[in-house]
């Protein structure tokens, strides 16, 4: 279970998150939608302490911390329970696929190297990269790099994985295969928060869809309700814009 309560974040005078609360039950997948600049990335970054929130509380499992006044130990603890999949992969360019996947285990979790390698191999097999262990990121396609990114998050066995637009940097023909892998992660019953504009993915996988705009949660509900019967005018407008851009999507 992961819960964010009343998080606020300003950048200077610009109020980016104005009292946002999100709750995700164990094994649930929540998809966050919203126009660019609405604060989705900032929300995820605050959960992982890549950004310091101005106020708010965060609960992951049995650990509750204050997002503003947290100790180093709490931050480390939260980071151990979460994993992040970035829009632009953020792989170490000088490490091979398998070394990238091992890194978090060896450095973050102090798993012995041999054991880390074994688990990394398993994770890479699982995302369909069994023949690419020793490839450097520059030798992989965007889709393959993102699969390494997913394996790297997944191998840590975190309580929650945060995805920030995991497919928006990919060529259109690679989006599908990457989403399929993310679906596989979801089927494993891992709690996930996914920022994405892929409507059909949200429709298939999400237990809950949250629509954010201007730093607040405008509306949330099951995909059926949000997509076919939104209450708020802003949600309707946003959805009609997205749907007109997405030829694959039909309700």
């Amino acid at each position, binding site marked *: 279970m992961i819960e964010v309560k009343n998080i606020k974040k300003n950048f200077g005078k610009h109020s980016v998150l104005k009292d946002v609360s999100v709750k995700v039950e164990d094994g649930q997948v929540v998809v966050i939608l919203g126009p660019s600049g609405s604060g989705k990335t900032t929300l995820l970054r605050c959960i992982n302490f*890549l950004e310091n929130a101005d106020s708010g509380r965060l609960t992951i499992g049995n650990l509750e911390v204050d997002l503003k006044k947290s100790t180093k130990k709490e931050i480390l603890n939260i980071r151990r329970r979460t994993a992040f999949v970035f829009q632009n992969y953020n792989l170490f360019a000088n490490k091979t696929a398998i070394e990238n996947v091992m890194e978090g285990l060896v*450095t973050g979790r102090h798993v012995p190297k041999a054991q880390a390698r074994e688990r990394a191999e398993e994770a890479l097999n699982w995302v369909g990269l069994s023949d690419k262990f020793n490839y*450097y990121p520059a030798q992989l396609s965007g889709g393959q790099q993102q699969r390494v990114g997913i394996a790297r998050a997944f191998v840590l066995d975190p309580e929650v994985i945060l995805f920030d637009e995991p497919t928006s940097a990919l060529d259109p023909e690679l989006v599908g295969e990457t989403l399929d892998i993310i679906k596989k992660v979801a089927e494993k019953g891992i709690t996930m928060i996914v920022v994405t504009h892929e409507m059909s993915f949200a429709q298939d996988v999400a237990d809950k869809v949250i629509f954010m705009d201007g730093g607040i949660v405008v509306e949330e509900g099951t995909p059926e309700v949000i997509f076919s019967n939104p209450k708020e005018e802003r949600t309707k407008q946003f959805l009609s814009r997205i749907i007109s851009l997405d030829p694959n999507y039909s309700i």
Partner: protein
Amino acid sequence: MVVKRTGNIVKFGIPWIIPAFVLLLWYLSTRPGMNNTLMPSPDKVIQKTFEMIKNGQLWEYLSVSTVRAGKGLLLGGFIGLTLAFLTGFNRILDLTLDTSIQMLRTIPVLAAISIMIIWFGIGERVKVYMVAFGVFFPIYINTYHGIKSIDKGLMEMGAVYGLSRFRIFTDIILPGALPSILVGVRLSLGTMWLLLIASEQIATDAGIGYMAMSARELLQMDKIVLAIILYAILGKLSDAWATWLERKLIRWRER
């Protein structure tokens, strides 16, 4: 197999067509009977080369020049790297130093040679310092650029994994900046020979620059041409060294 071998012959042979042609022209234009006061014939140069190998001069000049170049490269490279890491990571130092360094850079390095001679005399030091001064800029600027362009996302990744500062340096900063640093090294090698030769011609008692200069005074065309050929070989060798270094150090870049 055969096809591949012909492919190799083509690949490695074609670049040498023009040099071979120039050599041929050179040979033809300096045959006995032609006017060869302006250009010695190839066999005269070869003869001179063997002569200088035998009396040990060639080796002496070569090693003196190479050691000077190496010392200057190490000195200038070390200062350039260190300063770039300081300005690259410390905002205050960046603000204090970077503009000044960028201004210094606009001075044509050769213009510094007179003042360097006044300061350091005409001995060994002035050559090493000239080379150091020249190689400093490409190394500094490219290292600085490399550090500035390190992926912020990777630094965050390092923080998320809880990497120590040392590991952040060895695993993120160094690999991130390395390609750019090596571009600096490659550029500095050209400057290195240029400055060494220039300063050796002005004031010296050994080295290839000295060889060229003294030969000019005695109108020994064969020696002058030999000096030029040596420069070309040294330049090519250091370039090959830079390529080897790049291969060795950043193999992850290869596609």
